[in-house]
Every structure is written in C-alpha cells, then in structure tokens.
C-alpha cells in the first residue's frame, strides 16, 4: 500500500517534470533567433524558389504557426505515442532516437561504470588516511581534472591517442564505410574507448573527491575510534565500518551523476563526431528540428529522473534509518 502510493507519487512527479521541461524547451526554441529556413535550406536556394515553394517550406518547418498551437499539436501526438517525423533526417523521431540512444547509452554506461568504480577506488585510497601520500596524489589529480572541462580533455586525448600515437580512431562509432551488420562488437568498443574515457575523467574526480571526503570523515568518527579502541585492525575497520558507511552516499552520488554524464556527452560526442543523442541534440537545436529535439529532451529527462529515483529507492532499501523510518511513518 505504502509502496504503491510512493510509486504513484514518483510517476506524478515525473509527469510534472516532463511537462515542465518540454514547455521550457518549446519556449526557448520559439525565442531562438535562428530562422529554420535560412539555416536548413540556404539563402540562395530560397531566393531561387517560387513563392509557393517557399510557402510549402514554411509550413514544413512550422514557420508562422503560433508556438502554442505547435506545442499542443506536438503534445497531442506525443501522448498518443507518436513522436513525429524528424525534419532534418526525414525519418520518424522514434527511429532516429532509437539508433542514437543505443550508441549513447553504450558510451555512457561505460563512462558511468568507469567513473563510478575508478572514482570510488581512488576515493578510498585517498580517504583512508587524510594527508597521506596517496591522499595528496589523488586529490591533486582530482582537482586538476575536476577543473578541466570534459570537451577539452576529449580534445587532448584525441590529439595524443588518435592523432599522434594513432592507436585509436579519431571519431565515429563504427569504421567508415562498413555496412551496419558487418560491424562487430570489437569495432564498437574500439571506437568507444576514447569518448568513454574523456567522458568519465571529470566524473572520476567528483566521485573520488566525494568518496574521499566521506571516508576521511568516517575514519575520524567516534565509532571508528571506538573500533580501534576495541582492537580492530585498520583493515577490518575499513571493511566493516568504512565501506558500509560510505557506500550509501557514493551510490546516491553515482546515480545522481547520470545527469552530469548526459551533459558531458553532448560535448564529448561533438568532439569525437560520435553519432549519439548528444550530437543529435546539438544538430536538432541548431537546425530547429523541433520534433527531434523534443523527443531527445523527453528521453533524456526521463533517464536522468530515473537515475535520481533509483538513487532514492536504493537509499531507502539499504539505509536502515530510512527503511525503518518509512515503515513507521
């Protein structure tokens, strides 16, 4: 009963969030100074067209229709399960997103796991002993990468590993000129290493710094003092008290970081010409491809929301204080 109510609340919150996000994107798009016709058709081409043709194009790109009417039209279709046709790709939005989503998710899952595990590991190494050598090295590294934008790291990686060393491909998700069904898993991974690395690097430092901070606080807490006073070894303290007490915040942070990874992916995909959602979003935004941009927005918001909800659920499941609290309340 409690749970059903909670799930209902979450769904409601998600619906409200999506509504708000889509409206915002629509408003921003309608305020955008970009003229879809000039951008996508070209000034010269437009000049050589007949008035009738231009009218047809205007209708196609939705120029002249009030934003509110367009939004309602889009929303009505969307609620019926129709995400519309991408104006740029001339294919159903669902299809475009489907492909792109697969590429992106593949990339982001790796980056997410990498930043999670590496960050957690480095954070533990550093936080075990505040001020120790490991701590200074890790913190130094983290502060350096945390203050560096993901796209810049992406370009540096690209220069070193793709341009100079030629170990890894410069971009794209698959080798150029290969049919889709000939692309193997190896190719995909090969093309994904650099973008995933670039995407995870800044994530690693934020997870590591948080984990370090939490673990250092735990290692200086009264209950760790008492564990020491009871003759527990440092190792056992770390395993029995340390990890358990930092696992929760780390997990929450990790799920909440989904949004950061999404944000970072937009730039990183751009740098690596990686055909993912982020890149499509940039293309759609610049080209006023309203249906595509709206579709991407909805999907992205839903995934990020899902990440945060997963964090909440996990927290409730694992932390006895929350668990018992909810049962009581």
């Amino acid at each position: 009963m409690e749970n059903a109510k909670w799930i209902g609340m979450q769904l409601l919150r998600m619906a409200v969030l999506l509504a708000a996000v889509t409206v915002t994107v629509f408003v921003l798009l309608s305020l955008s100074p970009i003229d879809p016709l000039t951008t996508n058709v070209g000034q010269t081409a437009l000049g050589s067209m007949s008035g009738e043709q231009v009218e047809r194009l205007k209708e196609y790109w939705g120029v002249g229709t009030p934003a509110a009417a367009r939004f309602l039209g889009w929303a009505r279709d969307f609620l019926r399960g129709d995400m519309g046709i991408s104006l740029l790709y001339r294919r159903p939005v669902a299809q475009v997103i489907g492909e792109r989503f697969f590429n992106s998710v593949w990339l982001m899952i790796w980056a997410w796991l990498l930043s999670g595990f590496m960050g957690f590991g480095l954070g533990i190494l550093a936080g075990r002993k505040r001020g120790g050598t490991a701590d200074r090295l890790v913190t130094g590294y983290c502060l350096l990468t945390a203050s560096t934008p993901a796209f810049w790291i992406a370009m540096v990686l690209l220069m070193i590993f793709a341009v100079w060393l030629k170990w890894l491909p410069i971009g794209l998700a698959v080798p150029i000129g290969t049919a889709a069904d000939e692309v193997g898993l190896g190719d995909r991974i090969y093309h994904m290493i650099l973008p995933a690395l670039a995407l995870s690097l800044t994530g690693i430092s934020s997870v590591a710094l948080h984990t370090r901070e939490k673990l250092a606080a735990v290692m200086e807490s009264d209950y760790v003092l008492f564990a020491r006073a009871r003759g527990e070894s440092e190792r056992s303290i770390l395993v029995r008290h340390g990890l358990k007490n930092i696992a929760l915040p780390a997990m929450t942070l990790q799920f909440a970081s989904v949004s950061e990874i999404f944000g970072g992916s937009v730039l990183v995909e751009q740098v690596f010409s990686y055909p993912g959602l982020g890149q499509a979003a940039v293309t759609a935004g610049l080209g006023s491809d309203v249906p595509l941009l709206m579709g991407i927005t909805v999907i992205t918001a839903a995934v990020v929301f899902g990440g945060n909800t997963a964090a909440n659920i996990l927290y409730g499941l694992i932390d006895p204080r929350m668990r018992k609290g909810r049962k009581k309340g």
Partner: protein
Amino acid sequence: MDGHLLEVKGLSITFTQYERGLRRVSLPVIRDLGVTVDRGEMVAVIGSSGSGKSLLAHAVMGILPYNASAEGEIRYQGEILTEKRKKALRGRELVLVPQSVSYLDPLMRVGEQVKNGRKGRKWEEACRRVLGSYGLGPETESLYPFQLSGGMTRRVLISTAVMENPRLVIADEPTPGLHPEAAKRVLGHFREMTEAGAGVLLITHDLNLALQTADRVVVLYAGTAVEETDSRAFCREETLYHPYTRALYRAMPEHGFKSEPGSQPYVKELPSGCPYRPRCAMAGPECAGPVPLRKTDRGWVRCVRKEGEA
C-alpha cells in the same frame, strides 16, 4: 612506587589548530596530569564538562585525534605503554566504555557490535547473557543504534566492555541517562570486576556517584589535576585541601548546594599558574607562578597554600 596497574605521569595533551589567517595555535588542554590505578581498585576522575576527562581516557587507549599530541609517560603493569602495546592490549586487557551513542556504528546492528565481529555459538550466548544482565532482551540485538533510547545505549556500551575479560576498564561517563537503580547495578558490575582483580578508572562529573563506589578520587580542573584523595576525605571539608575540591564539597546537595561564582576557563583564556586562581578566594600573587605537587596525608594536592593558611 612500582607495580601500579596503570600509571599516568606528567601527561600533557596539546591540540594544534589553524585559526583565521592560517595562524597556528596550540591548545594545551591537559597539563602535567598524573593518575594511578592499582589492581582491585576503582579510581574516579571527576571534573566538569571540558576539563579533559575523555581525552585522558583516549590518551590511555591510544585513540587521540590526529591533531592532538601527547607528552608524558603512561605505564601499564610497570612497563611503558607504547603504541604497539596499546594495539596489542586494547579490546582485550584494556577496555573502554565510551561516552555516547556516536561511538556505535550507525549502520551496524547492536548484536554485531557487542560481539565485535566474532562468530559462533559461544559468542552469541555471551552476547545474549551480557545484554540480558542489563535487562536488554534478545530483540535488542537486531536493533540499530538510532532505535535505542539513551539508557539502552548506555547499557549496550557497557555490554561491549563486559563481553571481554579486562584487567583495566576505563569507563567514560557510564551512568547518565540511567535511572538510579540501573546506575547502581552498572557500578556494582564494575565493583565485581575490581573484586576479581581488575582496575577501573571511572570518569564522571557526578561526585556523589564517584564517592559511593570509588576508592580514590582525582579532581580535574581545566586540564589540570588539582587533588587526589581517598573517597572518605569527602566526609568533612577539613580533610580536603584544594579550594576547588572544597567548592565541590560545598556544592553537594547534603552540604548546602552552594555553587561558586564564575566558571571553568576555556583553554585559550587559561591564566598562568593555578587555573583556579581567578575564582579562588585565597589566591595571592604566588599562585601565578608554577604550582608544585604537595603530598598530603591522603594523596596529593596542587596548591601553594598550606592547610590553615588563608
């Protein structure tokens, strides 16, 4: 004198802190402190909040915070208690009853913490028995610290010590939150331990309680031990020698509840010489200099005044 179970001599604890503008300040929170505990003896350390009682306990256990440095000598069974020896002894011969619920892992069940990771029938039974002896049923074992009341927490903390077979127990405020009946039982348990040959260092700010059970009393004021005497000395004011000890005596309910004006100075505003000087009715210029320890018929006192002098 050799053969004390625990002998703390000339213990000083200093905290290093950074203030605004990265100015380094040293806080001498304990200065030149001495305490001894013999086998079969219960010694009470009394002092008001902030006088350094917990730090004394932590120094003996070797769990001072990283920004604290300790000087002086701590001996256990006649030998210097080095870090290595502390590590080998604590949790076994040397146990601490900590002061508050924050010393329990918030995410670990009570039973697990009392057993301290040890598995098997033997430990499960021991855990059940010890908790039971403090009126905590088996259901307590599966609770988390946040589900315990203050009194239950206290009893769980004490149980962790009773689970072991200690030679020296350092109990940091083991009784607040317990009703008088339970407090008596707890002290009774400590008494039984001393009868079996263990030593107990009882840290408390409750003078009445200390006098009821302890053999000797050490009075701490703002990080300095001002007097050591036996519990019976508190029967009359004349057998107490330090003005602060006398003030404590007069503050006891049965002796008129009179409290002295002023309060214990914070370490940063500590006067030179005797820390009690600003509040002392008998203070003179010589109290500002170094105050040596003077033997008395019952222990020692750190005061330049001889008895009878005013």
